[in-house]
């Protein structure tokens, strides 16, 4: 593969070149039209009496912003059109499967891989159980293997994962079908974990379905995806639309609702113009392994981390590499059977965005690289713009403030007319897609058949508009910070993503996080007041959102999510499909169990591996024997002694992990603890030994639902 996009390996699965060209010509003509008209109107507004530097600046930042607005607008509108077309989309890949195909046996082997990093073990393994059982119901389970690929560096999570794996295998009788692998050194994070799987086991499988720790997919969808890949050998990656599920906070439910309502139109629109050059989102997708192994290994970027080095947002790059190698990357516009969870609070969302921002900004290196398909290049650009647009918007507002401060208003009839037109046009670009999608729902009942629910959906949409109006300026400030931090070379640490609120709202966190934002809002408001009341009115929606950021973050983190009023409902909440029903039921069973003492609950994995003869045996069996154990024997003995005598808090997390990696130390620790006299044990262990058998009738099922062993 040189610096040129390869000819397609096969056209099966890819819309013809002419179809793609026609679609893109149409789509980008509309985008071009909308953008140019906007720029022209703004120019007419500002050009009276010549253009000052800040007016030139306003136009310059306005261009990419308006382009982005237009891309969203036309994607959604075309999506709605596609969804309502009498004849189905000719490029829909589901149409390539015939009735005969559905009855035909599968010949391909597929690995389902779940990379995990310090995740909620119950959620991961219960999700896996739901997926496994769903596949079992299709009768095609034998063609799938499951791999939990752990990079967890929290010793407790590590042991919990091992016990969760063993117990799930035991309950499902799935030894030899569900595998667990723990990497000692998590090189290159998630993408490195996936590559490591590919290197070790990739040749055994024709396809791999990549999951996130919170992904759930129905068996029938996965079997159909394999069939589609079999029927369309030109497709390298097939990405599904993962719908958000399981939210229990106000913000989480609103995001979940918005994605369920507006998502399908955007996905249909994206599929319309992206054709065979769609994006990979890193999970809930099936990948053809041979070309992935051959062409999609990621080289490091020039310069040092964070802007260079290891590619963090690997998915976009892998999609571009796959297309460059001559395989199509397709989006499958179905809204059933593919699910994930979203962040529960605004702060969690921002933490996630911080990582994504850095990853997307790294793509700047690749934007001008040779050989990408133009749409892959555009995908990189859109990814970068999704964060860079925030500082651009901020600059736009700052320049607007300067302009108002200079006493420049919109003068003249022509400028005033252009301004009014621009305002109308912009409002249309912002709100028309939502309006059309809501009307589509009210008329067609795509989400809900009962008319009452359709009306509640329309009302919920009105409310979410209000919420997003308050959220957008806060996101703008934070995304701007993230972009600046990235440019200034501040990296991000790899942390597990929080998916549930858990112990409730911590008030200090929003106050500390958004305090500065609120002060900025107040200061800007005072400035605007002194400039002019008209300007204050114009900018007040943005400033108000900044001022109330703290109560907004607290309010949206609440568990009062208006579900009982029938607001923000999604079909998955109201009528969960079987795979989600099973998951919810099992999660509830575990959640309803009495909790242990917090100290024991927090260190349960460690207690298990040290005290429980079976868990200890499991852990030792899964460890590789070290080549030169005698080199560090004394050091491990010292750490083990410290752990026994002073308790787990006396060791750092790295020291704990180091001890747990040594077979002999772990075996010895087990007997050392049980044989130590009470006075030689740390209070933590005295309590643990006394209580262990009481709180854990079966330690393996502590984190999992207790189910009968499958025959």
């Amino acid at each position, binding site marked *: 593969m040189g*610096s*040129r*996009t390869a000819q397609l390996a096969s056209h099966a699965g890819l819309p013809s*070149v*002419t179809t793609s060209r*026609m679609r893109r*010509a149409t789509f980008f*003509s509309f985008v*071009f*039209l909308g953008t140019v*008209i906007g720029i*022209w109107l703004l120019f*007419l507004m500002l050009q009276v009496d010549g253009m000052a530097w800040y007016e030139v600046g306003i136009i310059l930042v306005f261009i990419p912003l308006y382009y982005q607005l237009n891309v969203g607008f036309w994607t959604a509108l075309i999506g709605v059109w596609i969804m309502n077309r009498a004849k189905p989309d000719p490029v829909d890949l589901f149409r390539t499967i015939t009735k005969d195909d559905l009855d035909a046996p599968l010949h391909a082997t597929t690995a389902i891989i779940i990379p995990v990093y310090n995740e909620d073990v119950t959620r991961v393994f219960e999700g896996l159980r739901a997926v496994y059982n769903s596949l079992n119901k299709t009768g095609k389970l034998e063609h799938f293997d499951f791999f939990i690929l752990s990079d967890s560096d929290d010793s407790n999570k590590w042991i919990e994962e091992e016990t969760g794996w*063993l117990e799930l295998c*035991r309950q499902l009788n799935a*030894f*030899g079908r569900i595998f667990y*692998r723990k990497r000692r050194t998590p090189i290159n994070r998630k993408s490195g974990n996936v590559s490591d799987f*590919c*290197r*070790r*086991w*990739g*040749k*055994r499988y024709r396809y791999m379905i990549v999951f996130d720790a919170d992904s759930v997919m129905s068996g029938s969808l996965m079997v159909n995806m394999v069939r589609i890949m079999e029927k369309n050998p030109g497709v390298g990656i097939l990405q599904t639309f993962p719908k958000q599920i399981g939210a229990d906070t106000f913000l989480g439910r609103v995001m979940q609702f918005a994605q369920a309502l507006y998502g399908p139109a955007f996905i249909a629109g994206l599929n319309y113009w992206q054709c065979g050059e769609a994006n990979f989102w890193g999970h809930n997708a099936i990948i053809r392994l041979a070309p992935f*192994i051959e*062409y999609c*290994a*990621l*080289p490091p970027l*020039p310069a040092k981390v964070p802007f260079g080095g290891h590619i963090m947002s690997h998915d976009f790059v892998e999609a571009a590499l796959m297309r460059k190698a001559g395989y199509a990357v397709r989006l499958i516009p179905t809204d059933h059977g593919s699910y994930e969870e979203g962040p529960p609070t605004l702060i969690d969302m921002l933490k996630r965005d911080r990582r994504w921002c850095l990853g997307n900004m790294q793509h700047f290196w*690749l934007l*001008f*690289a*040779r*050989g990408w398909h*133009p749409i892959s290049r555009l995908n990189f650009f859109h990814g970068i713009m999704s964060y860079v647009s925030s500082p651009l918007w901020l600059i736009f507002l700052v320049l607007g403030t300067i302009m108002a401060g200079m006493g420049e208003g919109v003068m003249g009839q*022509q400028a005033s007319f*252009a301004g009014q037109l621009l305002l109308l046009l912009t409002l249309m670009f912002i709100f028309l897609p939502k309006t059309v999608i809501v009307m589509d729902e009210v008329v067609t009942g795509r989400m809900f058949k009962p008319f009452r629910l359709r009306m509640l959906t329309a009302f919920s949409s009105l409310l979410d508009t209000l919420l997003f109006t308050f959220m957008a300026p806060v996101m703008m400030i934070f995304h701007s910070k993230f972009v600046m931090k990235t440019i200034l070379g501040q990296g991000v640490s790899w942390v597990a993503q929080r998916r549930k609120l858990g112990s409730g709202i911590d008030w200090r966190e929003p106050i500390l996080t958004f305090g500065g934002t609120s002060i900025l809002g107040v200061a800007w408001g005072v400035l605007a007041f002194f400039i002019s009341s008209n300007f204050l009115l114009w900018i007040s929606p943005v400033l108000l959102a900044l001022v109330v950021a703290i109560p907004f973050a607290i309010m949206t983190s609440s568990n009062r999510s208006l579900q009982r009023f029938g607001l923000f409902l999604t079909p998955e909440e109201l009528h969960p499909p079987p795979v989600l029903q099973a998951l919810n039921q099992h999660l509830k069973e575990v959640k309803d169990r009495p909790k242990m003492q917090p100290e024991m609950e927090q260190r349960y994995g460690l207690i298990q591996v040290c*005290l429980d*003869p*079976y868990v*200890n*045996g499991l*852990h*030792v*069996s899964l460890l590789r024997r070290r080549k030169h154990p005698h080199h560090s024997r004394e050091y491990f003995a010292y750490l083990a002694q410290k752990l026994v005598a002073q308790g787990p808090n006396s060791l750092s997390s790295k020291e704990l992990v180091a001890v747990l990696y040594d*077979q*002999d130390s772990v*075996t010895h620790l087990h*007997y050392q603890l*049980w*044989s*130590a*006299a*009470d006075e030689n044990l740390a209070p933590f262990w005295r309590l643990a*030994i006394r209580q*262990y*058998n009481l709180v854990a009738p079966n330690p*393996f099922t502590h984190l999992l639902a207790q189910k009968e062993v499958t025959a």
Partner: protein
Amino acid sequence: MEAVTIHFAPKTGSEEEWNEAYARLADYFRSFRLHNRIRRTQLILETLRRAADAHEADPKRTPTAHAIEQARLMLREWLGQIYEGMELTESQIEGSGRLGFHLCDGPTRWPHFFIDRDNLPPDMAEAMRSAIRASGPRLQVSKMTPRAIDLGLFGDEEEDETDRRPFAFVRYFVLLLFVAAVLTAVYRLTIDK
């Protein structure tokens, strides 16, 4: 009902120490999920007797330490017997062996035979052996080597072919005309006459 006489008279160590050893052993054997109390009691007594002998020989160590050590030795001997000929190292026999008993549901199915060297039901031994035979899928190592990405400016683009569908030129021309017409209309609408 016959009276049960328990003979346990250690020559060394205090009563308090042996009580502590008893309690620890009880907890230890419970952690094996042996719900059969009679078997558990038998095991505790047997272990304590061996521990008493060991304590007499080495009274510096506590009875609890001796008791757990004896339990470990008894377990090792028992597991060694079961996994004989499977080419496992000492630590593998201990670790995997214990696990094998759990995986074949030993605590429920064969609680009476746990650490009983004289009575090894063949089905239990076979179940324990086969439980640890299952291993992961065979590695099929492949190379996944990153290829350098030429970060030079743009360069060659994809292989697009000429649109050869009917009236391709006319269709693109109409699209272009439409775009130009809309732009002209907006221009005429907004420009001062």
